[in-house]
């Protein structure tokens, strides 16, 4: 990690982007989502080739059990994160309902950005228009597949007519969220313009050039806020190339 990071971080000020709980929540969500997707995948296709996946879990019953355990992890992770980092989570949720001109401006040039063409957009906030859509869609999908999934787990709780609709609902939200995840992985980790940014969700810090380019307006606010903070709580740190870490 440090060698990789040196490539982007050398000579950069390091900007605090994500707290520990949001990062933990992100990765718990990633892990449980991946397990849910793999253990649920055999239900999407009838071919024998795909049913081989059941073997990973020691059979279909094992896959169902693992699916349910991962589902519980995914579902409880959110209230846990709220409880342990109300401030950080609130900041994230607040951003999602705060739509400004700059967000729409970002979305209008998003296709250019996606395909690597030169895209100009005004300085963005803590989240840009694209990341806001990513979060909003993921939250809606998460609610959708969690509610329908619980109904499928306990099929006699809801009135029968309503219960019948939980199955198409589950698959719709699963497919939509998978598509969103696919786009998110690409834009956040694989896209050439995302270089230097991935470490934000791992270490909590991003190099200044990344923050400037992707979240300029937020960076300006953060620089201002940083001035007022005591030394041990500074949000802007330095990169020690020798040690390969934020100091």
């Amino acid at each position: 990690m440090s060698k990789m990071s040196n490539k982007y971080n050398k000579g950069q000020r390091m900007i605090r982007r994500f707290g520990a709980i949001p990062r933990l929540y992100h990765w718990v969500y990633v892990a449980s989502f991946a397990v849910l997707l793999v253990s649920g995948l055999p239900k999407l296709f009838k071919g024998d080739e795909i049913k081989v996946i059941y073997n990973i879990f020691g059979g279909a019953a094992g896959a169902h059990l693992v699916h349910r355990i991962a589902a519980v992890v995914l579902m409880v992770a959110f209230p846990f994160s709220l409880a342990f980092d109300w401030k950080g989570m609130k900041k994230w949720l607040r951003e999602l309902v705060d739509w400004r001109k700059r967000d729409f401006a970002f979305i209008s040039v998003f296709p250019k950005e996606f395909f690597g063409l030169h895209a100009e957009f005004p300085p963005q906030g803590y989240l840009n228009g694209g990341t806001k859509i990513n979060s909003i869609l993921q939250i809606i999908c998460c609610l959708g597949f969690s509610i329908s999934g619980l109904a499928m787990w306990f099929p006699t709780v809801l009135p029968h007519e309503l219960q019948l609709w939980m199955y198409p609902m589950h698959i719709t939200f699963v497919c939509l969220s998978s598509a969103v995840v696919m786009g998110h992985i690409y834009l956040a980790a694989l896209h050439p313009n995302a270089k230097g940014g991935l470490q934000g969700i791992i270490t909590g810090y991003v190099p200044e050039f990344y923050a400037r380019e992707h979240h300029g307006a937020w960076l300006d606010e953060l620089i201002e806020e940083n001035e007022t903070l005591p030394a041990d709580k500074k949000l802007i740190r330095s990169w020690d190339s020798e040690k390969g870490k934020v100091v």
Partner: protein
Amino acid sequence: MATLKYAKFVDTTKCDGCRACMVACKNWNDLPVDPKAFDGAFNGYDSHEKLTANTWNIIKYTEKTNNTRNEGLDWFIAHNSCFHCGVAACEKACPEGAISHTEFGSVVIDEEKCVACGYCVVNCTFDVIRLGERTVNGKKKKVSTKCTLCTDRLDNGLHPACVTACHTGSLEFGDRAEMLAKAEARLDEIKDRYPNAQIYNPEGVGETTMFYLLADKPETYGLPVNPKVPTSLKVWKDYAQPVGKLLFGATTMAVVAGVVSNQLFNPRAKGETHEGGHDHE
């Protein structure tokens, strides 16, 4: 939709409620006893309120005033089991391909393929399928269970066990056209006595291999008036699932196109850094 060539015809006007069909079913299919104490929860005559994993057919008794004859009470008795629908919701709902139609029009469950997800249980139009424990390949596992129309007997030129056991001729099995003609003829015979009598062979589920001649309206027997394959099931399997897969596929394609496009047009993909120069390492 399966082409139905055979039929199990249930003439409810001939049923005397002896329950021999229930016993024969248990006997042939090796189904254990399903003890049920009298609990007064239903009409007090039925042995079981509903079908279970070990009781694949039951006799339902309905006592009702027959106002048309003004002769007091009448019994409406019906043998109840899987209908073996022409368009079977259970078959459509099954994600494992474990449920299929046989040449006899019977809908059967492959216990080896079944993973007990229960989608068929919820989606069955007639609330017939149940999850139960079975020994499959020497191992105990949960599977979906229901009447097989004794397909193993049909394969060997025999009639379903319930049909063979029926002593009044209420249950018959044979060529579909012949059975339907019999039902029509019988309907003519009983119309005077039972003006609400009708043949119950619902088109909403592509007709059924087991069909009824009812002496009264379907509601009297607790049967749905217009049974059909659930709309939600069609939305699920014919739209949500294929469109969802397409959406995921389209996103994947867009990402692949994005990677290629970035290689072609984005200078950073070629190793240039934010400062416009080249990467240090």
